[in-house]
């Protein structure tokens, strides 16, 4: 003890260290054993799991070991913790130090345990008070100078702290706004290790930056991309509106440079604003993935546009450690797949479950992780490999190439796409003309249509028309006799499969919702037929 300098002067073997408590083998602990316990959190997928950092200091050759299924970043923490403690003016005990991360079966990943390790070490060596450690959880990375740096997943950790019943959470000042979004947990935003020690010794709680700059969730963010900038493209605009209103997946087909990406980027702004619960959910996923939002909370619906070289794990989540994929990052927003036919088959196949179930379950070893994936899919593709089929320039593709292109597009994913629309280069006259509409106007209609769906589907698991299965369609979609006849005619004439029949009916329901009608009319069905995605049966005939 006498070797401890600085702050160690004020401590003795005391109440802030647990002595003789944790000996599982039943032996009496040596008098020289000192032990501290700090609660922190590991991110498992996107879920927080409580982790207890136990630090044991005893007589012996000076070593510092970290056990408990820690990955490389956590083992490297030893060096960071040693330097941070010394550079903050504390003493690093020259004794045998063992840190255990419990529970031992959970794999611990990333640098978020640094601060907890350092605090445990300080408390075990009596350099700070251990009294408060059952009230505060600690989460953060340390720099060599002793400053606390933010880690991914702060929001998830704050939720974990609330769930674990911990009164407060100590995090880095940067991104502490995220943690402050969780009610019921006091958040202390600290700058460095000394700050943590001061806080635990009974100092004032440094509050996180006032959360006022968080934009109100209800107010849409300033639109960088409004529909008012769009000229021409009347049909695609209509399709975007329908997709937004009913949550339908959309395929845009058109030659290069016709504006497919530009149109897709404008879809998130047409969707209803995020509710607070949705925003927190989005922020939590983004926080785990290392995406931070200004002011803490996600204010706009996410728009994710992964490149077509993406791996299946990158698209739906996975990897080691399992991380959320683009499909989860697009949760409550839009997933845009440009050049759909260039994506690898496995990647597209992997998207089926997320689209169908709104979540993906990834099983790794003995753990099953759930990532939410409720997004609207917008895909874009050239009409043929050279890109100019059906445009003013001649297409140079042969029938075989076309067939291959269609095969790549068809199949399981296309079954989940309700709307197909062709994007053509707007004419010069249209380019010079006035804008057709603004995002605000469209959003108003979309909101009204969503409200109608909400009322109609109140007692069903579905939220939007796109989620109606055959049974719900039969129960909740009422169509006029003429509309039914037209649909039956399309079905009988062989151009439509049973699945296609349902898709047309779903889209027709949304079109009627947009027009404020309770019953689906003939025109709604005709529109839906004209916008339906092509089916493989039809393609076979055309070949």
């Amino acid at each position, binding site marked *: 003890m006498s070797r401890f300098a600085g702050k160690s002067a004020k401590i003795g073997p005391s109440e802030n260290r647990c002595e003789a408590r944790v000996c599982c083998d039943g032996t009496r602990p040596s008098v020289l054993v000192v032990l501290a316990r700090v609660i922190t959190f590991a991110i498992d997928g996107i879920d927080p799991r409580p982790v207890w950092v136990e630090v044991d200091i005893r007589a012996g050759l000076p070593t510092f070991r970290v056990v408990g299924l820690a990955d490389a970043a956590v083992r490297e923490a030893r060096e960071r913790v040693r330097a941070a403690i010394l550079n903050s003016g504390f003493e690093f005990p020259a004794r045998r130090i063992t840190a255990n991360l419990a529970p031992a079966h959970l794999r611990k990943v990333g640098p978020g345990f640094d601060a907890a390790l350092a605090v445990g070490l300080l408390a075990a060596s009596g350099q700070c008070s251990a009294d408060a450690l059952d009230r505060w959880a600690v989460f953060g990375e340390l720099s060599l100078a002793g400053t606390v740096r933010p880690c991914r997943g702060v929001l998830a950790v704050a939720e974990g702290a609330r769930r674990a019943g911990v009164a407060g959470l100590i995090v880095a000042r940067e991104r502490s706004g995220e943690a402050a979004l969780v009610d019921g947990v006091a958040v202390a935003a600290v700058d460095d290790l000394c700050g943590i020690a001061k806080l635990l010794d009974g100092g004032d709680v440094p509050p996180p930056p006032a959360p006022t700059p968080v934009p109100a969730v209800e107010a849409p963010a300033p639109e960088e991309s409004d529909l008012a900038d769009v000229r021409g493209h*009347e049909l695609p605009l209509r399709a975007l509106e329908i997709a937004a209103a009913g949550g339908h997946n959309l395929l845009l087909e058109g030659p290069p440079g016709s504006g497919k990406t530009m149109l897709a980027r404008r879809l998130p702004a047409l969707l209803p604003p995020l509710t607070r619960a949705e925003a927190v959910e989005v922020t939590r996923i983004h926080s785990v993935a290392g995406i931070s939002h200004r002011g803490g909370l996600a204010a706009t619906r996410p728009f994710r546009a992964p490149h077509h070289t993406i791996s299946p794990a990158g698209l739906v989540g996975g990897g080691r450690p399992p991380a959320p994929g683009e499909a989860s990052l697009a949760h409550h927003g839009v997933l845009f797949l440009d050049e759909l036919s260039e994506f690898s088959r496995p990647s597209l196949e992997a998207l089926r479950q997320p689209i169908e179930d709104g979540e993906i379950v990834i099983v790794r070893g003995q753990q099953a992780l759930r990532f939410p994936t409720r997004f609207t899919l917008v895909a874009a593709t050239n*009409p043929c490999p050279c890109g100019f089929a*059906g445009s003013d320039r001649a297409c140079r593709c*042969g029938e075989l190439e076309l067939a291959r292109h269609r095969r790549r597009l068809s199949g399981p994913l296309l079954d989940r796409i309700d709307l197909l*629309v*062709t994007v053509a280069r707007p004419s010069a006259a249209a380019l010079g003309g006035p804008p057709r509409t603004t995002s605000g106007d469209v959003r108003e209609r979309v909101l009204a249509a969503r409200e109608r769906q909400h009322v109609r589907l109140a007692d069903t698991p579905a939220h939007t028309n796109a989620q109606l299965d055959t049974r719900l369609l039969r129960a909740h979609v009422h169509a006029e006799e003429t509309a039914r006849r037209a649909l039956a005619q399309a079905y009988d004439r062989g151009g439509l499969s049973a699945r296609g029949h349902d898709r047309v009916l779903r889209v027709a329901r949304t079109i009627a919702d947009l027009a404020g009608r309770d019953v689906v009319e003939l025109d709604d069905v*005709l529109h839906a037929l004209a916008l339906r995605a092509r089916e493989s049966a039809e393609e076979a005939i055309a070949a």
Partner: protein
Amino acid sequence: MTAARTSTLGSGACTTCLRRSWLVARLAGHIEIAWSARRGSSGLLALEDEALIAALAGDRRTAIAVEYEQFVTAAALRRCVASAVTAVCRCNARYPASLHDLPDAPAVLYVRGALDRFERAAAADRVAIVGARRATPYGLEQARGLGRGLAAAGLTVVSGMALGVDAAAHMGALEAEGTTLAVLACGPEQAYPASKRRLHARIVATGAVVAELPPGTPARRWCFPARNRMIAALAQATVVVEAGERSGSLITAGQAADLGREVAAVPGLVTAPLAAGTNALIADGAQLVRGPRDVLELLFGASAATLGPSRQGQEIASLEPDLRALLDRVGGGCDTVAALADGGAAVDAVLAGLAQLELRRLVRRGPGGRYTATA
């Protein structure tokens, strides 16, 4: 069953013709070399057996002559039976008379599909529909419409089962539940191109697939012009739907003209590369074809065009005025929703109208969201 099949399969060919056919297949590689060197095999197939060996075989001459002497008829017939193919030789009464017009008529016709069906198909009036492999939606639509209309009128549609126009013509005939005859450049049991497997099976089941080469022979480049001469000879009239300036379909048309058969062509835009060949044919005096009726008139005279008012015609006549106007605009080249809506019509109305027309099968949606009026 097996006995009955054995008795009909391979029964219609004599040893001389079978040996001749074997020889052509045996020399296929040599013919290919000669064809490549001279860019044409004209006259080769008209040579007598010995002359053919002498002209082509070179060093291998004696070896092939020995094989020729040792030819076993039964073995050749067995190979036919094994691939469910019937051989009909030119000495046989079942051999299509029209093929005799060829100076180098194939010695044996290998038929895949029921022989009596083939006989009926060859006895009926026959029209060949040929054209580009890389056809446009317009060309495909025309070929299909012609195939459908002519087959419905009781004619046999003859074509080469190639990609594009050929396959579309066969498809049209199958849609009308009519008879169609495919002439292949390889053995008749092989689906060539392979992507037309299903079409091959359907033609075998309802019509017949025939070829000059015995089962198992792969297609070589010279086989395609050789196949074209059979198409030209088999049909009373040859209709070219889309053809570029140097298209193989023009060879077929030329051969048909040489044989004294009727030649007709479907016109296209003068600016379209795939209409260069067909428009040139029309300029040279080929009959202009706007639909099945023109072909029937060409064959049987104006009075005999027995085609009743077409289904399309009736449908169009019963259309509401605005739908009729929309259909006219689609046919007039305004073929995308954007173009159709440019004239001031609301997109919604255009979409609804197009869906109505599609339901009545008056238009079809093609790649790039282009609508084509059906033929």
